[in-house]
C-alpha cells in the first residue's frame, strides 16, 4: 500500500497526508480544524492571525460557467476577525488533541521587526508546527501596507522573512502572490531571506462580474465592490505554471505547498509532479465541505498503486523538467488528428472548429469521396449547411417511414456523410479537434514519421545570429 505520509516537509513538518487546508474560512477556528482533521485532512494553515479586522458584507462572489457553479471564486474578506489570543488558545487545544497533524500558523502583522518577532514567538508557543507568512492577500490588507503590498516588493519580502527567521524555531513558509510580473523575483527574495519553504499561489486580483440590471460589480457592498482574490478550478492552470516556474528556478526552488484550484486527487498529483511537496485546498471545501478529502486521499493512493509509486517522493517533480522553453521543442515532431469512425456521433463540432478556428483540414467528404489538398478544393461549412437547409424533411408518420428513418445509418453509429475526415496532408497537429470532440478517444492525435532527426529552434538557428541581427518578435 503506498504511503502518503509527509515527513520533514520544509525541515520538520509532519502530517498523515499531503492534503492541507489553506489559510481561509475553512480554517477560521479550532472547532472547524478539528472536524477537518476528523474528516481526514492532514494539515491546516490557520486563517491568518494578526490584529483583528472588521469585515464587510457581502464578501464572496463567483464566476459560474454554463450552469456550473463556482468555476472561479472570489473574496474580499480580510484576515481573521478574531483576537490573536483566542486564535492561539484554540491552536494550542488543537495541537494537544491532534499532535500528529500539521498545524501551520498563517501570520500577518504590520511591517515592524518587533511586531513580527512577537507574533512568531506567540504562535510557536501555542504549538504551531510551522509559520506561513501571508505576503499574498491582494485586497484590503495590501492598502494598509501588508499582504501583497509586501509580496510585490522583493526587498520587503526578503527583509521581513529575515526578521521572522531571526526568531523562528519552526519552518517558515512564505506565501507568494501571483499578482506580479514574475513570481520568481519574490520567491528568490524569500529564499535569500532564509525561508524554509513556499506556498503558492495566493489569489489573483479579480472582478468576477457585473450585474446587468443594477450595473453593480460583484460582490456587492452597498452598490460598490472592490478588487477581490480569485481562486477555484479556473485558476489551476495559472497556479500550475507559477509552481513550475518557481520549482524549475534554482534560485527560487524550496519545499513548496501548492495552492490554486485543487479539488481532486488528480489536481493534487499534477502539482506534486511539478515538484510540490504538499497541497492546500480552500474553494473546493467551501463548495462541498471537508468530506471531499476522503476521495482525494483514496484516489491518490489508488493512482500511486497503479503506477507503482510507494511514496509521494517517488513521483514528486517527475514532470518538472518536461516543461521547457519553446526554443527547446522538437520542430520535427509531427502528429495528425485521426477520427475513429466507430465512435463518432456526428456532431461535426470538429469540422466547424477546424474550419473557423484552426487550419481548414477536416472535411465532410466521406460520402462524396475524400479529397486532399488546400482549402479551395473543399466545400465550406456554409456550403454544407445550405445543402441540408434546402432539404425537405417530413415527419415519419407510418410504421414503415419510422423504420426507415431510424434504421441503422450504415456501418457506424453516425451516417457516413456526418462523420468528418481529416486531411492528413494539411493537418498541422494542433489538437483543437480532439479538444472540442465530446466523445472520449474518438479523435486521437497520432504520430507520423517525418523521417527527420529531432531538431529544435535553438539548434536550427544556432550560428544564424552571427550573420543576421536578432529580430524583435
Amino acid at each position, binding site marked *: 500500500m503506498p504511503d502518503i505520509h509527509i515527513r520533514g516537509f520544509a525541515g520538520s513538518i509532519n502530517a498523515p497526508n499531503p492534503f492541507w487546508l489553506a489559510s481561509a474560512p475553512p480554517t477560521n477556528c479550532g472547532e472547524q480544524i478539528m472536524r477537518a482533521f476528523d474528516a481526514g485532512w492532514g494539515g491546516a494553515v490557520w486563517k491568518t492571525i494578526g490584529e483583528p479586522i472588521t469585515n464587510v458584507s457581502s464578501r464572496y462572489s463567483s464566476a459560474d460557467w*454554463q*450552469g456550473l457553479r463556482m468555476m472561479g471564486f472570489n473574496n474580499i474578506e480580510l484576515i481573521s476577525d478574531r483576537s490573536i489570543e483566542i486564535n492561539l488558545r484554540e491552536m494550542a487545544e488543537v495541537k494537544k488533541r491532534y499532535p500528529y497533524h500539521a498545524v501551520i500558523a498563517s501570520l500577518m502583522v504590520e511591517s515592524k521587526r518587533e511586531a513580527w518577532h512577537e507574533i512568531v514567538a506567540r504562535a510557536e508557543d501555542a504549538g504551531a508546527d510551522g509559520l506561513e507568512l501571508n505576503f499574498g492577500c491582494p485586497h484590503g490588507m495590501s492598502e494598509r501596507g501588508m499582504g501583497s503590498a509586501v509580496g510585490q516588493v522583493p526587498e520587503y519580502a526578503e527583509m521581513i522573512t529575515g526578521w521572522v527567521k531571526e526568531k523562528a524555531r519552526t519552518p517558515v513558509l512564505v506565501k507568494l502572490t501571483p499578482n506580479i510580473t514574475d513570481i520568481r523575483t519574490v520567491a528568490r527574495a524569500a529564499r535569500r531571506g532564509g525561508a524554509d519553504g513556499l506556498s503558492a499561489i495566493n489569489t489573483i486580483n479579480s472582478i468576477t462580474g457585473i450585474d446587468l440590471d443594477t450595473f453593480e460589480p460583484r460582490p456587492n457592498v452597498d452598490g460598490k465592490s472592490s478588487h477581490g482574490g480569485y481562486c477555484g478550478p479556473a485558476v489551476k492552470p495559472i497556479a500550475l505554471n507559477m509552481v513550475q516556474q518557481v520549482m524549475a528556478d534554482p534560485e527560487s526552488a524550496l519545499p513548496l505547498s501548492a495552492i490554486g484550484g485543487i479539488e481532486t486527487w488528480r489536481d493534487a498529483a499534477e502539482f506534486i509532479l511539478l515538484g510540490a511537496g504538499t497541497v492546500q485546498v480552500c474553494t473546493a471545501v467551501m463548495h462541498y465541505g471537508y468530506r471531499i478529502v476522503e476521495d482525494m486521499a483514496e484516489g491518490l493512493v489508488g493512482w500511486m498503486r497503479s503506477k507503482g509509486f510507494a511514496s509521494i517522493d517517488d513521483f514528486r517533480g517527475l514532470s518538472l523538467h518536461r516543461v521547457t522553453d519553446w526554443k527547446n521543442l522538437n520542430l520535427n515532431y509531427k502528429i495528425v488528428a485521426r477520427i475513429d469512425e466507430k465512435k463518432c*456521433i*456526428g*456532431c*461535426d*463540432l470538429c*469540422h*466547424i472548429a477546424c474550419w473557423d478556428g484552426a487550419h481548414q483540414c477536416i472535411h465532410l467528404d466521406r460520402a462524396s469521396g475524400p479529397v486532399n489538398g488546400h482549402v479551395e478544393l473543399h466545400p465550406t*461549412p456554409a456550403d*454544407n*449547411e445550405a445543402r*441540408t*437547409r434546402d*432539404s*425537405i*424533411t*417530413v*415527419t*415519419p*408518420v*407510418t*410504421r414503415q417511414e*419510422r423504420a426507415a*428513418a*431510424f434504421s441503422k445509418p450504415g456501418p457506424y*453509429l*453516425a451516417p457516413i456523410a*456526418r462523420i468528418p475526415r481529416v486531411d492528413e496532408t494539411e493537418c498541422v497537429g494542433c489538437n483543437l479537434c480532439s479538444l472540442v470532440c*465530446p*466523445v472520449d478517444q474518438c479523435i486521437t492525435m497520432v504520430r507520423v514519421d517525418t523521417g527527420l532527426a529531432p531538431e529544435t529552434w535553438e539548434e536550427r538557428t544556432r550560428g544564424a545570429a552571427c550573420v543576421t541581427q536578432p529580430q524583435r518578435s
Partner: protein
Amino acid sequence: MSTLTLPDDPQLRERFSELKRPLTPQAATIEANRCLYCFDAPCTTACPTHIDVPGFIKRIASGNLRGSALRILDANILGGSCSRACPVDVLCEGACVLHRQGRHPIRIAQLQRHAIDSFHASGEELLKAPPASRMVRVACIGAGPASLACAAELCRQGASATILERRALPGGLNTYGVAEYKLRAADSLREIELIRQMGVQFRFGASMDTADDLRALEDEFDFIFLGIGLGAMQRLNIPGEESDGVMNALELIAEYKTGRLRELTGTVVVVGAGNTAIDAANAARRLGAETVYLLYRRGESDISAFNFEYEHAKQEGVQFLWRRQPAAIRRGDHGQLLLDTVQVREVDKKLLPIPDSQFTIACNLVVPAIGQSPIAQLMREACRIEIKDGGIVTDRATGRTSNPRYFAGGDCANGGREVVDAVADGKRSALTMLKIAEAVYA
C-alpha cells in the same frame, strides 16, 4: 374579430391538465447548457421547418429569451403549438446525437416551449414589414396550421393575406383536434392572435362549397392557397352507424375542447388504432367513462399510433381489443346501445372473420376513428387541379399545384401528417408566391 374567444372551463382545465409541466427558468438553462451545439445539427435537419435548434437553445443558455423565441418563430410561426404537439421522438429529439452516446437527448420541445411561452408572457409582438409593401394578395382557405404559416410568412414580408374559415375559431386541428392535455385550445388561439397582430385578415363562417365561391376568390386575390385539410372521418360502413350513440373521434375531441361535451359515463368503444383514436380514447377516460375499449382489426404491432401514444393510452386505462372488427350497432331490448363485434384473422393480407367469435359489447358510445377521407373533389372540378388518391398533387418544394394560381399544403396535400409538416408546406408556398410576384414586378 379577435381570435381569443374561448371561455375558461375549470373542469376541462382540471381533467385535461397538461401532460408535461413547463420547465422552470433555471431547469431550462441547465438543460440548454447540455446541448453540444452541433454544426449543421441533425435536429434541425430532422425538423420539417428546419428550426435552428442549437441556435435557439444557446440563446436560452445565455438568457437571450426574446432572441431565442424569434429564432424559432422565424422558421416556424407555430413553434409554440409544435413544441407541445410534435412527436419529437421521431423528429428533432429522435435525431439528437446524444442518443449515439447512450445519453438522454436534449429536451428540445420543452426548451422551445420555454422560449415561446416567455415571449408570450412578455406581451411583445412580432416584427413585420410595412403592410402592402409587396403587391401580392393571397387568400388562404382553411385556418389550420398550413394556412396560418402561409399567411404569416406573407404578411411578415409585406404581402397581404386573408384566411377564410368555415368555423367560428381559427387553428383547424390545432384548436379543435389536438388532445387538450397536449395543446390547449386557448394556447392555440393565443398563438394565432400573434399572427393576427402581424396583419393577417380572417373571415370566419366563410364556406367555399361551390365553384362560384372560388371564382369570386380568384377575382379578388392573386393566389389562392388551399389549406383545407382532410374531409370528414371515414365511416365504419356497418348497420346502425347513424344511431344516436355514435360520434366520430374528431367530433368528440372538438366537442370537449370547446366545452360542449363535458361528461361521459359507462363504456366507450373507440374503433381504430391511430393517434386520433388514442386521443379520443384517452379523452373518453378523462371525461369520466369507466371503461374504454379500443377496438382494432389487426394486432398490437400493426397500429399506426406512435409508440409513446400507445404507452400513454395504457397508462390512462384504455383497454385494447386486438383483431376484432365491429359488425353492427343496434339497440338492445331495454334501449341500451350494443356493438356487435367479431374476431378476425389475417390470411394473405385479408381479414377473415373467425366463426363463432361474435361478441357483443354493451356500451354508451361508439367512436369511429379509422381516418379521414379526402376532400378534394370540388377542387378538381372547380379549379382544374390535379388530384391523386384523393390528395392535391403539389410540388413539395414550392407548394405549386397544376393550376398556377393555386397552391396547397398541409393534410390535403401531404395525405395527413403533423402540424409541423403543414407549417413547412405553408411557408414554402408563401416563399414561392413571393418569388413569383418579385419576378413579375421586376
